[in-house]
């Protein structure tokens, strides 16, 4: 690990080849640095993920342990987040009676993804902890299990499938086409759209941001011929903009993931309560 970092640094410092400043998809498949070859192998992204988890649990855990009846500013902010998830995501989509059961799940999904997504904008981490296909996939599979369980529990497997595959008010020949699509939707499209939306956003965000800042480093600092320095200023401005934009995207994607999770689960419930 140290060797790799060291080599990387010297290579960066010495190189005047633009390719060395370009981000690549290899950033999302970094080499294993601990427990190589075992199921517990850790690479750079997983290290970021573990650190982000520890920090989040510490910060929120201490906040909860010290929570007072009259909240301070920080506690007020955390409470605002909890209220936001409960009222503006869960209760707004499902209503209070149905939603109560899912508040902890959606809170977990939203806050965890928010922190993980924001890791991409934290200096030193520089990559979202959710920037591998697996993490969004695991969260999506949780959602998948929840909406299947909810559907089977509320309607029974037969009625759940009938309602989903043969929606009412459609002329019967259309079912030939519609039923397989609906099944596909239920089994594959929902979880994978959740997964890929989040993952692709994290990947593209990192690539664009790293490209802007890498170009800035190359044109302003690394290259010997400074003719293109103004272009470096431009890429720096773009990098600043992208940085702020990626913060927005990180929050937005956590929100979208949470609200879609809620919506998918809600779809498994009978229409009229």
């Amino acid at each position, binding site marked *: 690990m140290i060797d*790799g970092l060291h*080599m*990387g640094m010297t*290579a960066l410092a010495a190189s005047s080849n633009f390719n060395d400043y370009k981000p*690549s*998809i*290899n950033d*999302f*498949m970094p*080499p*294993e640095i601990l*427990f190589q070859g*075992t*199921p*517990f*192998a*850790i*690479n750079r992204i*997983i290290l970021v*993920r*573990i650190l982000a*988890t520890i920090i*989040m*649990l510490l910060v*929120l*855990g201490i906040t*909860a*342990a010290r*929570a*007072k*009846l009259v909240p301070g500013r920080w506690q007020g902010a*955390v*409470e605002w987040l*909890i209220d936001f998830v409960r009222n503006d995501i869960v209760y707004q989509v499902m209503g209070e009676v149905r939603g109560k059961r899912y*508040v*902890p*799940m959606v*809170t*977990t999904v939203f*806050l*965890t993804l928010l922190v993980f997504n924001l890791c991409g904008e934290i200096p030193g981490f520089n990559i979202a902890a959710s920037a*591998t*296909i*697996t*993490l969004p*996939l*695991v*969260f999506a599979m*949780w959602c998948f299990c929840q909406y299947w369980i909810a559907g089977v529990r509320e309607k029974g497997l037969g009625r759940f499938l009938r309602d989903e595959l043969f929606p009412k008010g459609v002329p019967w020949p259309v079912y030939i086409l519609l039923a397989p699509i609906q099944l596909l939707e239920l089994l594959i499209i929902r979880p994978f759209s959740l997964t890929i939306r989040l*993952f692709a956003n994290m*990947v593209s965000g990192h690539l664009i941001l790293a490209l802007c800042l890498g170009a800035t480093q190359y044109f302003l600092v690394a290259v010997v011929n400074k003719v293109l320095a103004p272009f470096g200023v431009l890429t720096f401005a773009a990098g600043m903009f992208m940085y702020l934009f990626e913060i927005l995207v990180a929050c937005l994607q956590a929100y979208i993931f949470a609200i879609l999770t809620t919506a998918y689960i809600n779809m498994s419930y009978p229409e009229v309560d």
Partner: protein
Amino acid sequence: MFVMAEEKSGVDLFIPELYDIVWSLIILIIVAVFFYKFFLPKFQSIFDERAAKIEGGMAKAEQAQKEAEEAKKKYQAQLSTARVEASKIRDDARAEASHIIADARSRAETEAAQITANAERSVESQQQKAMVQLKGEVGTIATQLAGKILGSELSSQSVQSDMIDKMLADMEQGAK
């Protein structure tokens, strides 16, 4: 290039690694347990406690207001009874005063009447005493006069008139 020996293809991005699945699951479970078992229940209890306290405070304030209103009503009632009582006392006093005055007047009148009566009685008795005295004196004078008439001769006109004058003078003296 350094470190990275092989350039990976884009498709590799979408193939989950076993260790990645393991770590994602471990972290998801830890995080979920944290939120389910500690973080949210803790904040829920804080929210509940806060709501209870706010409601309790509101109830307490309401009760305090009710009590204050009751006290005010009681106070006003007391004030009005006190006022009534005071006016009653004043009326009583006034009545008593007029009673006392009337009493005094009647007593004075009685006394005055008594005094008048006494005076009248004493005047009457003096008059009676004077009458009795006069009667006695008239008798004496009449006797003397008769003695004189009998004792001296009525010789002359002058003696006669002298006698009459003398008698009259005596009478006058007696009357005095």
